[in-house]
């Protein structure tokens, strides 16, 4: 069903940066420690304690901002965002307000299945801030019993705000997938949504075409989406909901205050969150405990130079240099830098990019999944796989035997030669093969007859028999020989 509206989506992504210590103190950022053990006077806001910026967090943030094609202003500063909540022990969050460390970038996205046109999604800004703690509410009984864990308080977050350039839930999901991939390539975050190291909020509304021109519905902020799939579902739901509400009420942008809705994944709906009694005024002002940060253009250049090859460029290069399809390049690049490096090595050593791509996508990825290991821990080195591909290419192994060898190499951690020997695979002598084919033809006159009448496919029946007698025979060669010999009979 074609919809009479366009969905307008902007995303706000919070990324926990993979630093060893917090943004303004030396406490560990490790996830899962007992509550309130990774804390100190600074991150729990004790009287008199002062923040000192973690340089490493700034480096990771800058790396990300540069990779997102952002401008890095020469001067940036820290501001206090003030509100009261028990998981914010200072009563303010140290963040960046009017002079963020980066702005005006973009991230290019493309759907491999071509469901939308490739596009650049604008990045309004990316700025650093400290995370708050975690509140755990027990509201079951009327006597609310809340507990606070301040381990997360002060963990560095990069807030990335996109332009409202996304036009469908699929585009939003693709943007997030591409962003996560980029962050993974940059090694700046582990992007674990379950542990909260990547959090997404969305702003969404509709532009509806009516006879009286285009109408915009009120913007809704959607929160509480805990996976990319949830983002996609929540946005699809929200678009439909807004359309229905518009049909019922005719409410337009500006008619009602901006609403915040939470996604309920189990019920598959968004629900309005309680209105705050007063509109929030965060009373931002420059944090007098911290000094402004000044970047030189040389520093930015150094960061840029050290970025390495990023996914978009890499996809193009793999397709070009290794003669694989853009789709295959996409699958490989999406697996992360480790798999790409593995593939490149296999392709280089085997001299066959297509086969390397097939083997990596099919067998290597499956093996990684089955053994739940990372590419670095896979028992089969790229050089061994290249050797196997070469052997298969030279006809020394047929494809099914090659995969047997691969399985043997994987399970027994053997080299190709060892695996071949262990499986008893030996090259079959041509005269031996000729003798075997003659024998089989002699025993099957009907098949000889069929072949003679041009039904060469009939020879296929003999391949199975040949393999039964000698598992090492090359099926293709058996076919060829049988056809040739039958003709002579």
């Amino acid at each position, binding site marked *: 069903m074609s919809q009479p509206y366009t969905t307008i989506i902007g995303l706000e992504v919070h990324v926990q940066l993979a630093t060893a210590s917090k943004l303004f103190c030396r406490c560990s950022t490790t996830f899962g420690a007992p509550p309130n053990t990774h804390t100190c*006077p600074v991150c*729990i*806001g*004790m*009287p*008199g*304690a*002062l*923040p*000192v*910026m973690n340089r490493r967090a700034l480096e990771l943030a800058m790396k990300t901002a540069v990779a997102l094609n952002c401008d890095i202003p020469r001067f940036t500063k820290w501001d*206090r965002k*003030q509100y*009261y909540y*028990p998981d914010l*022990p*200072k*009563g*303010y969050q140290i963040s960046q307000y009017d002079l963020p460390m980066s702005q005006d970038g973009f991230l290019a996205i493309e759907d491999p299945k071509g469901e939308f046109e490739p596009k650049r999604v604008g990045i309004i800004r990316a700025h650093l801030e400290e995370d708050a703690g975690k509140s755990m509410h027990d509201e079951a009984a009327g006597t*609310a019993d809340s507990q*606070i864990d301040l381990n997360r308080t002060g963990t560095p977050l990069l807030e990335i705000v996109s332009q409202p350039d996304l036009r469908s839930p699929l585009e939003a999901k693709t943007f997030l997938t591409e962003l996560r991939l980029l962050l993974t390539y940059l090694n700046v975050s582990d992007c674990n949504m379950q542990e909260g190291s990547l959090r997404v909020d969305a702003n969404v509304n509709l532009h509806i075409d009516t006879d009286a021109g285009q109408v915009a519905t009120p913007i809704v902020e959607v929160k509480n989406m805990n996976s990319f799939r949830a983002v996609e579902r929540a946005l699809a739901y929200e678009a439909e909901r807004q359309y229905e509400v518009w049909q019922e009420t005719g409410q337009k942008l500006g008619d009602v205050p901006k609403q915040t809705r939470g996604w309920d994944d189990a019920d598959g709906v968004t629900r309005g969150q309680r209105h705050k*009694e007063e509109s929030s*005024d965060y*009373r*931002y*002002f420059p944090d*007098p*405990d*911290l*000094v402004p940060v000044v970047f030189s253009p040389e520093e930015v250049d150094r960061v840029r130079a050290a970025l390495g090859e990023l996914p978009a460029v890499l996809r193009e290069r793999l397709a070009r240099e290794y003669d694989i399809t853009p789709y295959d390049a996409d699958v490989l690049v999406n697996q992360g830098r480790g798999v790409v490096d593995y593939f490149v090595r296999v392709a280089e050593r085997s001299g066959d990019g297509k086969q390397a791509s097939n083997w990596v996508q099919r067998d290597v990825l499956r093996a990684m999944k089955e053994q739940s290991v990372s590419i670095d821990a896979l028992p089969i080195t790229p050089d061994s796989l290249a050797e196997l591909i070469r052997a298969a290419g030279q006809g020394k192994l047929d494809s099914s035997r090659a995969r047997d060898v691969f399985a043997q190499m994987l399970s027994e951690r053997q080299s190709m030669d060892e695996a071949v020997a262990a499986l008893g695979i030996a090259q079959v002598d041509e005269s031996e093969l000729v003798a075997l084919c003659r024998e089989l033809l002699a025993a099957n006159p009907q098949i000889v007859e069929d072949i003679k009448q041009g039904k060469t496919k009939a020879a296929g029946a003999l391949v199975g028999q040949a393999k039964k007698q000698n598992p090492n025979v090359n099926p293709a060669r058996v076919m060829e020989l049988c056809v040739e010999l039958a003709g002579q009979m």
Partner: protein
Amino acid sequence: MTMALVDLTAREHLARLTAGELTSVELTTAYLDQIERYDESVGSFLHVPRDQVLERAAQVDHRRQRGETIGALGGLPVAVKDVLCTRDMPTTCGSRMLEHFQSPYDASVVERLLAADAVILGKTNMDEFAMGSSTENSAFGPTRNPWALDRTPGGSSGGAATCIAARMAPLSIGTDTGGSIRQPAGLCGVVGLKPTYGRVSRYGLVAFASSFDQVGPITRDVADAALMLETLAGHDPRDSTSIERPVPAYSQSVERPLTGLRLGIVKEHYGPGLDGQVEQAVRAAIDVYRKLGAEVREVSIPHGRYGVATYYVIAPSEASSNLARYDGAHYGYRTDQAEMTAALSRERAGLEAAGDTAAADALDAPLVRMYRRTRAEGFGPEVKRRIMLGTYALSAGYYDAYYLKAAKVRRLIRQDYEQAFQQVDLIAGPVTPSPAFKLGELVDDPLSMYLLDLYTVSANLAGIPAISLPCGLTDDGLPIGLQLQAPHFEEERLLRGAHMYQHETDWHTRKPPLL
């Protein structure tokens, strides 16, 4: 009155301690006895753990007797303003909010004092969270001026200044945000130094207004201030605003007079509002410099007249943010929750009985009510006033007109000083427009109280070092202070210039009649 041990300066004590003529226990006991005798009437101290203090003194003595290397303040008692965190004494900031608060760590300056083998004598009284100019805003009662017990000692470091004036400590440290070291020092006839912003670490100084707060010494004379600053000053990696710069040996150079001194007097300083006797004393002090060969020049700080207004926008803005953490959730005072919950239930029941469900729904959530009550009960009126001022100045729609405007004026004042210091080496003037006023006199007149900071706030706005030293007594026998200001990081020049004056005069040796 005969010369008692407690009448000697810290440097004189140190010489005797080093020579083995005096032990830290003897010295500390003498001051503890002095506290017992006078502090009931003066009220300098909030906390004096006598046994703990003497134990520490004995340790220093023991180490000295064993021939170990002893720090620069080896065995000298030091009083610490109760806004500096101490691990083994309470840190109340003069507030009910932190009445039972125990800091888990020592402030950097406290660490430095301990590393220099000082003996921390106790914690001194102050205006709540250092907000005030009279020490009347302490939740634990006011401090009285030893020169006239019915008068204020000034503030906020009232306890820190009076304990020096009443010979209850040889050395003390205070903090100065808008004059809180210099003003009480001036009103109590002692020496108070506010260093350059960034010279002394603020780590562990409970923040009032972070971009102004500085820790500094309050002492009997300038040489003692030099000795003390040498220990306090220096870079601290835990304070991002502390500056990495070598610390001169102030105590070595302090007695060397400045030659060819160009002394500035600010023409805007002498106008209506300045008490005649204060003006006379300050002019007489400047004449002393003339006699010493200084060239006196008039300079202008044209934007200085906006100093108090600028300060009372920026400082409360920062305070409103710095004090947000006192909400009862994590530490410090919290309202009686059972009582609060009961009150909420009563209110709800009443409203519902009256059929006013809208009002019942609009009642505070328990958390919000806890915040409100905790802060209403835990803070005193002056702190609340400044939190409200600052919250207002930072609010959407007012920020540009107040905070941002004030920040710009602040820069202009700083530039005024930079220009003035191209013509002169030091600037001399009054510390306060008038001598110590009566307790209670200005409690209901906050604006007049704020205007007392007229001569001191400029140094905080500009971030420059300034010192207050005794330069006379009024007809009623109240001390008058002389303020000297120097360019950024010129504490050495400031101390040498101040010492020149003390060398020629004896105001700093006068004792309050109480003693």
